[in-house]
């Protein structure tokens, strides 16, 4: 992600404008270890994928052949539709709830607030795959502790019905929300803490209630953090892999093993040994992620220094 060197969480706006040059170099020292990993596990694989995507198995130039070949695959469109539907449901949930919860938390007294922050963060502390396994049990009405919810909200008496094809984008969005949102609530809370107390007080003196304060004062000030979250989450969402893969195995194939685009890439590489097509799909996903990032950055002015 291009955001690494100018992470909005790195600096308070006041300090950044005062000594940008020096600060930039100091910042660089901090990101060097990350940079090494970024090159090793981020940039080099991307270059390798680009090379594979535009060449044939023999190494000869293939042009767009791999892209057209994968785009006409019968699984490509359904997978893309699944992923886009999932991403839109998940992003909406994420932005709405994370921002609302963070604003609510910030308005509370500090002791209650810290308890809640801890509680929100807790599900995210489970590793991704492990939390999906927990959800597999949660969704099975015969063993779920919340079986009445599964019965009434999902209208499912059987695990098979919980994971019916039409419900899947929503199920996956829910799993991802519960495992990922808590961390973001804490990040947003941190962002809210950077708002100077004087601004808060001034607004109160001017007669702003908690609602006006939250929506008119705090929300515009954490806009960049929301944009940052959206960019990262958009990329994560379109590259969905673990949830459908595990549900595919747990349901003995009732969820296809090519439900998401990333899974299709995985299957192409390892079942059909077609690494070039798999790379083409990865490049598609990279392009979608980059496009999303560019749109959000230009719309929100994320990297403008003098905000």
């Amino acid at each position, binding site marked *: 992600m291009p955001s690494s060197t100018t992470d909005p969480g790195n600096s308070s706006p006041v300090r950044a404008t005062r000594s940008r040059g020096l600060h930039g170099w100091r910042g660089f020292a901090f990101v060097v270890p990350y940079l090494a990993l970024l090159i090793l596990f981020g940039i080099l694989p991307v270059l390798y994928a680009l090379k594979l995507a535009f060449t044939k198995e023999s190494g000869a130039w293939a042009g767009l052949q791999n892209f057209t070949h994968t785009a006409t695959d019968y699984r490509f469109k359904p997978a893309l539709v699944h992923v886009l539907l999932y991403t839109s449901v998940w992003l909406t949930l994420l932005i709405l709830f994370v921002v609302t919860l963070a604003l609510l938390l910030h308005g509370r007294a500090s002791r209650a607030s810290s308890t809640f922050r801890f509680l929100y963060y807790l599900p995210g502390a489970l*590793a991704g795959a492990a939390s999906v396994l927990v959800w597999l049990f949660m969704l099975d009405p*015969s063993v779920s502790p919340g079986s009445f919810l599964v019965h009434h909200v999902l209208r499912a008496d059987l*695990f*098979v*019905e919980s994971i019916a094809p039409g419900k899947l984008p929503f199920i996956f969005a829910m799993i991802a929300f519960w495992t990922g949102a808590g961390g973001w609530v804490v990040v947003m809370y941190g962002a809210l803490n950077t708002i100077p107390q004087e601004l808060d007080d001034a607004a109160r003196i001017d007669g702003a209630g908690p609602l006006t304060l939250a929506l008119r004062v705090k929300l515009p000030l954490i806009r960049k953090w929301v944009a940052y979250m959206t960019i990262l989450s958009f990329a*994560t969402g379109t590259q969905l892999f673990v949830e459908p893969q595990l549900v595919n*195995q747990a349901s003995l*194939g009732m969820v*296809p*093993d090519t439900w998401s685009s990333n899974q299709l890439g995985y299957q192409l590489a390892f079942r059909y040994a077609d690494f070039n097509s798999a790379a083409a799909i990865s490049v598609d996903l990279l392009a979608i992620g980059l496009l999303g990032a560019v749109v959000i950055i230009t719309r929100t002015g994320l990297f403008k220094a003098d905000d």
Partner: protein
Amino acid sequence: MKQRRLWSAAVVVMALALVGACGGSGGGSSDKADVTVWVDAARLPVAKAYQKEHPDVKMDIVTFDGDGNGATTLQTKIQLWNRSGKGWPDVIFSEQVNDPIWMARKPFEFAAPLEDLIPEEVRSQWPETSTAQCTVDGKQYCVQDNLAQVVLWVNQKKMDEFGYTVPTTWQDWAALGEKVATEHPGYIVGNIGDSFSHWIYLWGNQCPLQQLDGEDLKIDAADEHCTRTASLLDPLIENGTLPPLSVFTPDFAQQYGGDDDKVLLMPGPSWYAQAVFDDALHVPAGEMTAAAPLQWEDEPVVTGQVGGGPWIISRHAKDSKAAADFVIWATTEFNPTGEGEDARPGYPAYAPLATKWLEALSANAYFASDPAPALQAGADEVWDGWSLVTYPDQPVWSDTVVTKLVAGDSLSSLLQPFGDALTDAAEAAGYAVVDN
């Protein structure tokens, strides 16, 4: 965040592999081992027993999730081994009967032909249908561990109690299903929600959904054999005597298993006796037995198959002789009469061993009456018009049919979508598909 997820998945997979390796390795290290074998949990005892009997052979035993449903564990591994040019195990047991087909071919090219490794007089003791399933382009690439012919499992106790006679044809069976629905609601005469149910009902009724003829693969869901079977099953699915549930789900065990079990009849493979009725459903002893496979009115008997896991020897094996020796021992000698941990999970494919296994089965007090004759009768009746192919068809069935049956659609209305989805999968795997 994406990286974090992929990483956590990788960590889980690696942890599983490590646990598996430690669980079974018995101290052997991979660079010293003479034979590295990959087995599923059910085949772990045979590998351990071989190690015990042959202390001079250094064995490295790795367990993995041998089941398929399209899980690409083995394909992924073999691709990676092929790419890195090392790491291949010497012997693999797979629960997927079609695995040797792709293992023998490009791009995997993992399996070694057995003609030079296992003597002809040993190989000839496998039934012809079994050997045919291991043969790719005229060469034999595997030996099956067990046969998985479908028979009719019968709850003798309940059938007697209700005064029913055991059906011999699919028509009688369906008629009984209708009767059970009204006279004893809640009882079932089978189930159709497993990822392999099409092998029981469609393979067993000669529905041509996977028929190789030279290079052409015939997939014809509109064939009369398919449609007439679907019409026969639909009323039973609707009246609840043939539920679209999997026997391996907790729901199923809760609803139909236990001391007061509701399983009256169930067409299913030979290994159901222990794995399903005893272990999964806890049907009490003295109730179940096997009857001969059902036939279609007065047509000749043919049946389906669910499993028949093969042993495959790697063409990269450092010591092929030692690998072959292990496979021969595992399939022709290992413990036909064992109990508990050492029990053979299925009907041995190697005929002389099957005889001993059946004798032990006849004496087993779990069964209401001797299931051996029915199993033996079904052993050579697996329909040979269902070819094994490189792609997995189970996920296609689960995804396009089972999920829709659960939602209330009829099997008849799902046959064509199933055929179409199979065609897509076959073409993606490089087959030329014809429909008549």
